[in-house]
């Protein structure tokens, strides 16, 4: 009898863990139906997508290059979510991080490479902190909805970027030939993140993975992380326990912004070696600020699980371009499907929750009934979720 129950437990846990996978499969299925309507063989399309992402060493390296900023933004989303704030401002935070780090990289020449790269990354982080911190402070002390303010901050950042890349920071060489491409000059060779030649995979990918582990440690093995999570779960109880709630609400957005800012800096120092856009709102970021949310959700808002999730979505985005070439289906399809993945993942949460309450009630029957609030404190210290 007991055995049977624990079997059910384990099965339930596995199903819970696989829910995002089912959600993605469901979205791809919807995509397949759309492709059929468009008279495209979905198998051919998805095969092109897969090969574009994993078909060769180079393809896989490109996937990882794309996954790196997704992971970084996603890590920020994990932190924010634990503090119960929603950060939609990844786009803007990336842009400001990239703008500032590009500026220092171009302004100070002739420094040792490692030093400039370190400074560049730190400045990028600072930019992200500021751009995430404004909505954070406004939420904590002025009750401003952070979803709205981060979206507004995105639009402001895009305009700042367009202003600087076509004005004060525009590539002088471009200005000379009267070209209108909004881009800065290139960083000098020494300032570029080391690459794993012959691919374009750069050191930033490794940094991101290490940071994922560090975020896990931060959230579940430090006082700071504990407080962020406590505030996220139960603000009144945290206040009663003496935690300065406002401060930690602001802090989770500042930290969250830091990661997006770093993502922007790495995009400049590791991939393009300059800041460049195409005039559209996602011209510089490629929508990473939004897709990072998708990746984090897919990784169940757990920093370590966000690593494979980012690789998956990096693959989808890289593969989408191949798919566009092979079957002439615009890569916008993948963006639409990503939206569906988000909807399906948050919708599937209900099954996890139902099973959780069921599990608790079974546990109650087996052991002594719970006294007081032991459940809640257990939840807070529980590893992994």
């Amino acid at each position, binding site marked *: 009898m007991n055995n049977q129950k624990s079997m059910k437990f384990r099965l339930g846990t596995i199903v819970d863990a696989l829910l995002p996978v089912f959600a993605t499969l469901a979205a791809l299925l919807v995509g397949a139906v759309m492709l059929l309507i468009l008279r495209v063989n979905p198998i051919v399309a998805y095969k092109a997508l897969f090969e574009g992402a994993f078909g060769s060493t180079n393809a896989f390296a490109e996937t990882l290059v794309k996954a790196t900023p997704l992971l970084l933004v996603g890590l920020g989303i994990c932190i924010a979510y634990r503090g119960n704030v929603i950060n939609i401002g990844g786009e803007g935070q990336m842009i400001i991080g990239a703008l500032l780090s590009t500026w220092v990289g171009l302004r100070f020449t002739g420094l040792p490479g490692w030093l400039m790269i370190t400074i560049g990354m730190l400045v990028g982080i600072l930019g992200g902190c500021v751009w995430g911190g404004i909505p954070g402070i406004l939420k904590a002390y*002025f009750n*401003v909805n952070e979803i709205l303010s981060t979206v*507004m901050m995105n639009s402001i950042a895009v*305009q700042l970027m367009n202003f600087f890349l076509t004005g004060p920071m525009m590539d002088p060489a471009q200005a000379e030939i009267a070209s209108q491409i909004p881009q800065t000059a290139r960083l000098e060779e020494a300032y570029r993140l080391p690459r794993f030649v012959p691919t374009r995979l750069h050191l930033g990918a490794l940094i991101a993975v290490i940071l994922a582990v560090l975020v896990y440690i931060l959230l579940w093995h430090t006082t700071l992380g504990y407080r962020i999570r406590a505030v996220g779960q139960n603000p009144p109880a945290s206040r009663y326990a003496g935690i300065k709630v406002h401060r930690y609400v602001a802090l989770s957005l500042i930290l969250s912004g830091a990661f997006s800012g770093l993502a922007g800096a790495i995009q400049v120092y590791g991939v393009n070696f300059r800041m460049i856009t195409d005039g559209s709102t996602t011209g510089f970021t490629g929508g990473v600020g939004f897709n990072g949310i*998708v990746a984090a*959700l897919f990784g169940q808002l757990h920093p370590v699980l966000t690593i494979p999730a980012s690789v998956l979505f990096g693959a989808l985005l890289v593969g989408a371009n191949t798919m566009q070439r092979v079957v002439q289906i615009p890569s*916008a399809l993948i963006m639409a499907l990503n*939206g569906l993945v988000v*909807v399906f993942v948050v919708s599937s949460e209900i099954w996890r*929750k139902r099973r959780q309450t069921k599990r608790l009630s079974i546990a109650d029957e087996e052991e002594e009934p719970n006294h007081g609030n032991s459940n809640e404190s257990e939840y807070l210290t529980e590893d992994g979720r």
Partner: protein
Amino acid sequence: MIADLFNLTVLLGILASGIRLATPYLYASIGETFSQRSGVLNLGVEGQMLLGAFAAFYVSINTGNLWLGVLAAMAVGAIMGLAMAFVTVNLHAKQGISGIGFYLFGLGMSNLLFQLLVGTVETVRGFPKIDIPLLVNIPIIGSILFSQNILVYVAFLLVPAAWFVLNKTTLGLNIRAVGENPEAADSLGVSVARVRYFTIILGGTLSGLGGASLSVALLNVFQQNMTAGLGFIAVALVYFGGWRPWGALAGALLFSMVNALQLWIQVLGIPIATELAVMMPYILTILVLTVSGRKMRTPSALTKPFEREG
């Protein structure tokens, strides 16, 4: 050059374009007011507007009938609303995040369809201006207020209509009850689910219509991501307006006037970088949210899913 702004014709010009530009904000924020009043934060507005704008544009250029285009936009918005309602009411999905999902879906989908079905820049012959007899002859303001296209008039008439429905009808009472205290409403026999389905679908329909007002009444083209954050601003205006239709109107007007001012600054060649001028409405939104933030009385059940006990 700054002095040019204070010339009467320019001021009237700003006023006139401000009133026109308020239209899409009005549709979207009135719709959002209804859904938030019933306790549902619909963040998919932007996606609904984009798909609505595309539907209106596409159907209009292919049938030559603008009204069919508007109907298509409303239908697309309603379907998106229905999906949103199912996900938030039945599946208790997190409203903020699922809204972002619907936004990404609408953004990707409208891009995809535009590239596949249209591809090039095409213009629609949009709704013509209608002069309201007599009123249009009022000196100075007559031509500003009473020489607009039909979707502008409808948007402004929607405000008192929404106020009436919310405050003077049983339906409105039920909506407010469901948004403030769903348990109590439920025990009095009001179906929380049915009310929320109604408001979310209504919100979607109006967002679609707002999108249509952009593509077939104001700009008469479709561009990828043409709303550029307008839907999110509309959501912010609901907060600004204190969840009241008249408040949303005030917010929409303030916002569109600043937008019009920004456009006129560019037209007059006042030496402020375009980008910095375009930024103004967004900065204004944040400032407005900051000022109104503290005294805000949010509907109590906003973003909280409702589950019947037992």
